[in-house]
């Protein structure tokens, strides 16, 4: 159970949480600000999704402790990610087909 060492650890964690929190808030403001910039469609999408991905990884890595999670869980999530991207993008090929049809 909670040893002295644990307590130290947790206090260390709490510091990290605060830093992550600040970063997330800053990135939120940044992404909103960026949306008012005069960017092309593609650039805007790229920027917004990049920021969202960074935010998402921060939440997953630190709040959800994925960064120090057991290998088994990482594997399951990687498998899920593969299927997620397949689901996301392969149906899109239907549009390539439709553009062929004109």
């Amino acid at each position, binding site marked *: 159970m909670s040893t002295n060492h644990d307590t130290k650890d947790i206090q260390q964690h709490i510091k990290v949480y605060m830093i992550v929190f600040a970063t997330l808030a800053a990135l939120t403001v940044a992404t909103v600000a960026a949306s008012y910039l005069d960017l092309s469609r593609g650039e805007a999408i790229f920027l917004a999704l990049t920021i969202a991905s960074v935010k998402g990884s921060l939440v997953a890595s630190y709040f959800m402790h994925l960064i120090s999670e057991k290998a088994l869980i990482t594997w399951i999530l990687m498998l899920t990610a593969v299927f997620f991207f*397949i689901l996301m993008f392969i149906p899109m090929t239907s549009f390539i087909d439709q553009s062929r*049809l004109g």
Partner: protein
Amino acid sequence: MSSYTHHDEPFYRKYIWSTDHKIIGLQYGFTALFFLLVGFTLMMIMRWQLAYPESPVPLVGSIFGEDGILLPEIYNSLGAMHGTIMIFLGIVPLAVGAFGNYIVPLQIGAPDMAFPKLNAASYWSYLVGGIVMMSSFFTAEGAARSGWTSYPPLAVIEVGQTLWLIGMIFLITSSLLGSINFITTIVQLRAPGLSWMRLPFFVWAQLVTAFLLLLAFPPLESAAVLQLMDRVAGTSFFLPSGLVVSGEILDVSGGGSPLLWQHLFWFLAHPEVYVLILPAMGIVSEVIANNTRKPLWGYKSLVFAVVFLGFMSFIVWAHHMFITGMGTAMSDFFQTTTMIISIPSIIILSAFFISLWGASIRFNTPMLFALAFLPMFGIGGLTGLPLGLAAADIYLHDTYYVIGHFHYVVAPGTIFGLFAGIYYWYPKITGRKMSETMGKLHFWPSLIFMNGVFMPMFIQGLAGVSRRLWDGGLEYAHASGVLHWNEFMSISAWLLGLAQIPFIFNIFYSLKFGEKVGKNPWDSTTLEWTAPSPPLPHVNFEKIPEVHREAYEYSVPGRKRDFTPQTVPKKG
């Protein structure tokens, strides 16, 4: 079944609101068998209309209106519900819910599933889904009538679909809860010493199945939500602009796509077909190993093949959509993956065949069903190959060839596998064996009539007869040469129904009068046979077993007995 009453629980706690995986397994089993019978009954009614178009259905005709004729819209309802019931309410709950629940914890030496309450919730969610589905028959609109595939826009504009969607959401939730439970149980609760490569193949099959359910079902859940929105909130997820239905412009915003549904649906529904087959393969492997008195041949390659099969099953789905206007890139991709996925199936089947060589085969009822599974699945699987080649599928798509293909895999395939399992594990559940005589009386007619129903479908399919035709093709010239088969198939189907009577009778008869047997009547090696029959409520084993060896140590040279249970310690 009730002789062991270790905990003094009231009746309803023990049999109704139970959290014991064995009771839940039985609840699943009986509910699913009931639904199988319902689904089959629907089909026996439909087969009347197919054999004798527009003549009053005997016995039950009065339900369908005064003259007793099955109207086209009712035919479509029964067809859609036959498919839905068989797959989602019959086979999956029986193969996963019942067999998985009852056998997996026993085979891995666990006292229960990892989350017993979740397990009960999963069953009840299934039951609610089933009741919602069934109740749709009794509403004014009637049941869903757009096929089990529920393609929009038809499914959005047809009546009866709403309850189908709501039912599906319950069924999907049930499967998700179940699959989380299975994976956690198999990963976490394996008995000491039971390493991955010592697992019985059945457990591997269930593990892969659980992953398929876990990751493939949610997209269909989201698709069901979207279709529900289309129906009740007037959205246009699946409706393009400018539709004219019955002369009226459809009053929706438009902008959606019917193909989106097909992608989301088949993203589930292809993995789903392996959900139907893998548990049956698992059962067959157990029965074969036991009754050949030999280890399964090539256990490692079996495990590898089934994992690979599971993975690949996520990337073949669009082979159901070849004819929807697909270009070369996509069709080439999906044809290739479809051909690739046939290889692990061949590996698995080959390993089963080769296991027979050098065996000492006992032809008891479970073994007969397991053996029949092999060529029947073979026919079904092999006829999948021309369907997987897009060029051949141009002609064969949506014909009875497809119906024949998949019924061979699910009916004389999966159902036979499940029958084998019921006969095989019955003694574990009840402490008594099922009657062999009645078992054989069940097996032989079933085998013959199954082929009687489904073999002519290939002939009709080759002739180009479409599926889902109310009159079985009477309208069409190209069907005229093969139309006479309809009567033959229907009679086979009804006889197939009769052939189930010895089975149903046997289940109840053997409960009281079956031959009493000990813990391990089949001289088997796996863990479930070291538990008492029936296993102790809630805890299964008198003491958590320890595993010392691989799953199938049969006929090891130099040993006294021809089987060595996994719990026997290695000497020295």
